[in-house]
């Protein structure tokens, strides 16, 4: 743990180490943040290829490209990779890069643990992806791995999946501990809690969610491991266990998990909109309290994922109303964003475009969530494409768009160069059009009764599925523009100022662009 001292005591102009070992041994928050982001990009493209293979199979009815077992492996791996490999590491990478810069800290509080929490990930995901090449194939039971499908009927590779989940859980927990320690202990003098930028606030709350629920995920996969190999019967009715118990424990983790994937997104959007509306964020304090309320509520709504397991009426009602309650703090946030833009001097650079699309499309996803929260109606929607449409609307134009918005917003600060605005806008419009063509028709086929997780479907769903597949390929291939834009921004010298954006405020815009290897060796004074 001596590294933080070294960082602070080293001369400000001391640069990074040379060679490949720089990346293995680095304890620098900027290096580690970059590695997280590159890792996430690779996983995003890999998970995206799996999504495209799913959509290709669903382009028309009948079995064309793959057998159903492989299709199931694709849906499972797509979900796991996108949730644990793309979205979560991207947010941790952004936190690594930006949290110390935003609070005036020289580095993360625990730099060596930071290195470790990143380097666990490539090994965890190598193990997970390797299951595709094992006998019996990769996990094929869906990313929610319901028992007994994931225990009694699982392929042998499930054990590798369990250990991969353990490892990524340890990585997330270490990352969360680091972020909490940084925010609570390393703020610059004068940076009080209610002056923290909202990205920092949302990440602080997210980190507490991670610490609360990742151990529960570790617990549930450990129970699976014991059921499979050590003869216990947690989820086996013959031995006195209960398969429904799995769903309760899993969703006790799973619902806070979906907020882990969206709260930092709220934070990013709350940074970007004020910058391009050239106004202070409307209702800062209410944003903080709304985030905390959403985090609290996430612990008491888990069973809305399992309305159809045969819960008693009292349970259905409780989970229905508590779920609907979440719309209140979320609505506060959406109205605050709109109020921030109201009568602002708005401009529409790429980050702002993605942020605006986030507000609109995330709200659509939120509304379909409210429809799903209605317990009696959920019996029709449950496990249909309506659910697929709902969570892709909150995760793709929600979490992913916010990450992309954040990348375009902070990329000039990271590289010192401006990205190509025209190419950025092209990327936005192709993504925006592609994402809606892909996921909007899924609402219709879902309401009409098309079940999720099937490789073949009834003929009446053919047209909308063909449309969705076309949209998916537009969206998927337009992400190559993101890769192109990032690489071009690194390579083409188009120098930018420290402030970068006219309306940008906050400590991160006071350091030069590109941000020097060591920043805030002397803590800034925040007034």
């Amino acid at each position, binding site marked *: 743990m001596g590294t933080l001292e070294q960082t602070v005591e080293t001369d400000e102009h001391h640069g990074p180490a040379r060679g490949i070992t720089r990346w293995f041994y680095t304890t620098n928050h900027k290096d580690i943040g970059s590695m997280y982001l590159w890792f996430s990009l690779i996983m995003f493209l890999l998970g995206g290829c799996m999504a495209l293979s799913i959509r290709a199979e669903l382009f028309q009815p009948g079995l064309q490209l*793959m057998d159903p077992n492989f299709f199931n492996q694709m849906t499972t791996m797509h979900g796991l990779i996108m949730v644990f490999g793309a979205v979560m590491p991207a947010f941790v990478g952004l936190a690594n890069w930006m949290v110390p810069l935003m609070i005036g800290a020289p580095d993360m509080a625990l730099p060596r643990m930071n290195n470790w929490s990143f380097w666990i990930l490539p090994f965890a995901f190598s193990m997970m992806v390797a299951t595709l090449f094992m006998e019996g194939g990769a996990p094929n039971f869906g990313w929610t791995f319901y028992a007994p499908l994931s225990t009694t009927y699982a392929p042998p590779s499930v054990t590798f999946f369990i250990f991969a989940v353990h490892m990524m859980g340890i990585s997330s927990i270490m990352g969360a501990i680091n972020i*909490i320690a940084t925010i*609570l202990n390393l703020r610059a003098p004068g940076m009080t809690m209610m002056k923290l930028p909202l990205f920092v606030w949302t990440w602080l709350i997210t980190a507490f969610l991670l610490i609360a629920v990742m151990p*529960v995920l570790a617990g549930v996969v450990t*129970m699976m491991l014991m059921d499979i190999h050590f003869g216990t019967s947690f989820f086996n*009715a*013959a*031995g006195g266990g209960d398969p429904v118990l799995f769903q309760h424990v899993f969703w006790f983790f799973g619902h806070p998990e979906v907020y882990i994937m969206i709260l930092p997104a709220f934070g990013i959007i709350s940074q970007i909109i004020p910058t391009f509306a050239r106004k202070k964020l409307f209702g800062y304090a209410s944003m903080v309290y709304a985030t905390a309320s959403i985090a609290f509520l996430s612990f008491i709504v888990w069973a809305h994922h399992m309305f159809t397991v045969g819960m008693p009426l009292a349970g259905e009602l409780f989970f229905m109303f508590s779920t609907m309650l979440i719309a209140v703090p979320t609505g506060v946030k959406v109205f605050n964003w709109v109020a921030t833009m109201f009568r602002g001097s708005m401009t529409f650079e790429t980050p702002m475009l993605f942020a605006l699309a986030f507000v609109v499309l995330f709200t659509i996803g939120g509304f379909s969530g409210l429809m799903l929260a209605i317990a009696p109606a959920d019996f029709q929607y449950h496990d249909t494409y309506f659910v697929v449409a709902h969570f892709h609307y909150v995760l793709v134009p929600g979490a992913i768009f916010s990450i992309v918005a954040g990348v375009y917003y902070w990329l000039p600060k990271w590289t010192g160069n401006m990205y190509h605005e025209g190419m950025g806008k092209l990327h936005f419009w192709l993504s925006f059009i592609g994402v809606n063509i892909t996921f909007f028709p899924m609402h219709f086929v879902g309401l009409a009764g098309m079940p999720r997780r099937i490789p073949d479907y009834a003929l009446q769903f053919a047209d909308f599925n063909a449309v969705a597949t076309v949209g998916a390929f537009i969206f998927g291939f337009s992400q190559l523009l993101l890769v192109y834009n990032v690489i071009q921004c690194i390579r083409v010298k188009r120098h930018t100022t420290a402030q970068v954006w006219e309306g940008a405020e906050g400590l991160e815009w006071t350091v030069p662009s590109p941000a020097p290897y060591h920043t805030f060796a002397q803590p800034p004074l925040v007034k």
Partner: protein
Amino acid sequence: MAQLQNENIKLVRKLVLGCLLMFGFGFALVPLYDVFCDITGLNGKVTRTGPAGPMQVDRSREINLQLIAVNNEAMPWQFEPITTTMTIHPGLTGQTAFLAYNPTGQNMIAQAVPSVAPAEAAEYLQKINCFCFERQALEPGQSMEMPLLFVIDPELPEHITTITLSYTLFDITPQLQANYSAGQPSMRRFML
């Protein structure tokens, strides 16, 4: 600096402790859900077992009891109730039985797991003796009548007129783990 390190270490200790507690809490959820279901009677599990105390027989109404026998997947036994429906006054001890037959050439052990619908009725059904209390063993070709002795509490809410009692029979014969046979080359087809 040293002071900051101390603060960091203190905070990390607390957070790691929090993680360990939550890991334990994950496992604690297993009994907690059971306790919760016991207290609220929400899960349709019959918790009243053993000898019944004296009860007032309510001759003013009759309850339909439906009996269902289900084999869990891969359970080869024949398993059925001797009668599928019976009517009984609350407070009166009822007796019936289920038939089991082992058609295989092996000694087998089975466990029946009960469930009651509607769940609200579960706490008013008292099983005095039930074959589901213990494991049932059958030799090859052997059959057996498995008794069930029960009483329905006269406190049963008026609106419940029919109770369904279902048993699922599981094969719990100790055996080597079945080999996973579905090692199809699913990848190959996709790649070619």
